[in-house]
């Protein structure tokens, strides 16, 4: 169903972090941007669709004090809003927002770090664009920071802090930005496997809370009102967002799932785990019977590699890209 294409070489290897691959397709310029986190650096590659041009850029984590030794980056993700696209980078120190090509940093938010280290690590993780003008970022305390983003310029402000999760946020996802009307437009997941479903607005509204099983949910997606969640048990669960009804459960992987992605136009689902496997599934919603079908389509094994990032490169799922721990390349697959 898919075959392997030529890999893109990156400057450093990928670190073992959840959802460690960002992809942004720039149609008008026939380019795709990829981001891969390595320790305290984000490697960005801009790849032309004809496969002839690659340009690289590295973004450093921002330190208030250069002599401080460690500021590891936890995640880098593209946020697509109707008016603009931003690259959001989260670290132990705070949240940086760049123009999507990484050229200019437009906003910096420092996390409150205690003077002397407490037992709990402090970092930001979980990034999602929501609706027309919000970017939400999770924090290790369980808080979710909601930023209001104007259609241009750097006047980004912290609009709200959502305190519902008690454990570190792992991932967040949304659907329906722009014109479509959705009941729920944001889902947040934490280290205990708990899921919160939100409706965005001047004040975000908590619509539902789905309790976890004390097992981390490392990656989450929202599609057609369905939450698709990947867990440390290697399982994928599909829940109806607003009611919390469990539609389906898949014993998908033999190790911790690190990344999920959905191609919204085709309903293809991508899952990747530390067991070195990437799997492609098809989700079929039947609103009449309120059921979801999950069909397995394809497997790819990246030999001896613990996969940390996997994303579709387009909304149809025609191609996808994969990163792995200690691997200095982005592996690509295209439909045959």
């Amino acid at each position, binding site marked *: 169903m898919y075959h392997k294409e030529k890999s893109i070489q990156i400057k*450093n*290897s990928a*670190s*073992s*972090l959840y959802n460690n691959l960002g992809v942004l397709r720039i149609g008008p310029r026939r380019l795709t941007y990829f981001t891969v986190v*390595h*320790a305290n650096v984000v490697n960005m590659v801009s790849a032309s669709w004809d496969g002839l041009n690659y340009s690289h850029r590295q973004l450093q984590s921002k330190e208030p004090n250069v*002599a*401080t*030794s*460690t500021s*590891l980056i*936890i995640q880098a993700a593209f946020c697509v809003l109707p008016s603009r696209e931003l690259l959001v980078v989260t670290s*132990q120190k705070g949240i940086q927002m760049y123009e999507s090509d990484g050229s200019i940093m437009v906003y910096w938010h420092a996390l409150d770090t205690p003077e002397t*280290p*407490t*037992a*709990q*690590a402090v*970092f930001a993780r979980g990034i999602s664009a929501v609706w027309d003008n919000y970017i939400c970022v999770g924090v290790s305390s369980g808080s979710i920071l909601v930023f209001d983003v104007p259609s241009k310029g750097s006047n980004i402000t912290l609009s709200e802090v959502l305190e519902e999760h008690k*454990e*570190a946020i*792992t991932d967040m996802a949304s659907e329906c930005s722009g014109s479509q009307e959705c009941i729920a437009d944001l889902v947040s997941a*934490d*280290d*205990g496997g708990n899921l919160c479903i939100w409706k965005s607005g001047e004040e975000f509204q908590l619509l539902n809370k789905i309790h976890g099983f*004390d*097992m*981390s949910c490392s990656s989450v997606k929202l599609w057609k009102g369905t939450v698709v969640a990947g867990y*440390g*048990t*290697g*399982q994928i669960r599909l829940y109806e967002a607003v009611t919390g*009804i*469990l*539609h*389906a*459960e*898949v*014993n*998908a992987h*033999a*190790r*911790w799932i690190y990344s999920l992605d959905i191609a919204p136009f085709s309903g293809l689902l991508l899952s990747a785990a530390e*067991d*070195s*496997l990437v799997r492609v599934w098809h989700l079929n919603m039947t609103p009449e019977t*309120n*059921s*979801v*079908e999950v069909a*397995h389509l394809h*497997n790819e*094994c990246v*030999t*001896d*590699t*613990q996969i940390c990032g996997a994303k579709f490169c387009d909304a149809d799922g025609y191609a996808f890209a994969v990163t792995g*721990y*200690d691997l200095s390349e982005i592996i690509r697959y295209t439909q045959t």
Partner: protein
Amino acid sequence: MSLKTLPLVFINLGGEMLYILDQRLQAHNTSDDNSEKGVWSDKDRKRVMNDITATMFSKDFVDELLKPQQLYSHRTLKTVLTRLAHASIMRLNPASMDKLYELMLMAFKYQVFLCPRPKDLLLITYNHIDTIRELVKDTPVVVNQVDEMHRKMIEVYSSLSEGEFQLLRQTLLIFFQDMHVRLSLFLKNKVQNPNGRFALSTSGPVPHGIYVPGLIRVFDSKGREVRRSQFPTGGTYSSSVKEGCFELRGDRVITLGVNMYTVHHPEETQTCKAPPVKTNDTPNPLAKEELNLLARLMGSMKDENKSKTETGFWINLFTTDEEEDQASDSRGADDSMFGLISIQAMQDEQAATELAQIAGQFAEQKQPEFTSCTKGDDLLAMMDDL
């Protein structure tokens, strides 16, 4: 990221160090080596094991380790481990210490990489503690120290969630990133490929608590299962074996972390010539927090077991000609990775004094051929000579 890595790092790396030293000192039971003052008897070897273990598990050192803090650079870690290795009558030359560090790191990287569940990091650690306990079993005082540390570990780590353990594991994996030194024993057992990558199997039992892949279940709105189907997994998985024991004593079940070296096979503790690691060549000054940590750790290591009049015995740990060549070759490449510690802007008077004291301890134990320095003088030269 995680602030709880140091105790795991020191117990596991320290454990690997003891395994390697134990094997190598038994291999040195002849006096062929010129740098030795005499034969390493069984008594000498046990003494080294006891002294290093006692220092590593001393209350002050353990208390420092258990404080929440970042995992700093390889430089700091290596400095402290070198000090640990020198806690007894044995002295290692820099080339030997470099080799030892590489072996220790790669062994631990392998264990962390292949750890079945993040929580099993504890079982790996307990395997090391169990084996160390065996090595020092003839000395009850030291066994007590080991037990005390083990109890503290159980107290601190038992309540961590799987998510927190995974964060810990991710922090360690970043620390080991891009290291692909090949170990003879690993290559021989096919756990490592010739390119330095570890082998990941897609068959065998799944970790405890994970379901065997292959099943899709669909439910109705009342939560009743309406359909189940199988999908091809691309591997051959079986159900998990029983869970290992997290108590003070017990069957750990997983074997990562036990002593994989056997006596009379010194070729096992050997690395193969690897392409030099691509590293940043400009050594950064140690950050202030890092220097403070270094000072605290070094300062907390007790000197009780040594009398000041005893001289140390220098040893080339890896003594065949081939190994010597490899050691000097790789040292050239490694210099960029383990660069000089340059202490530049020292704003903290206290840290400076503490470091001077620590450096002073080294002065008393140095071999005459190195330039001897008086306490407090020439800090830079002290650290360089490590």
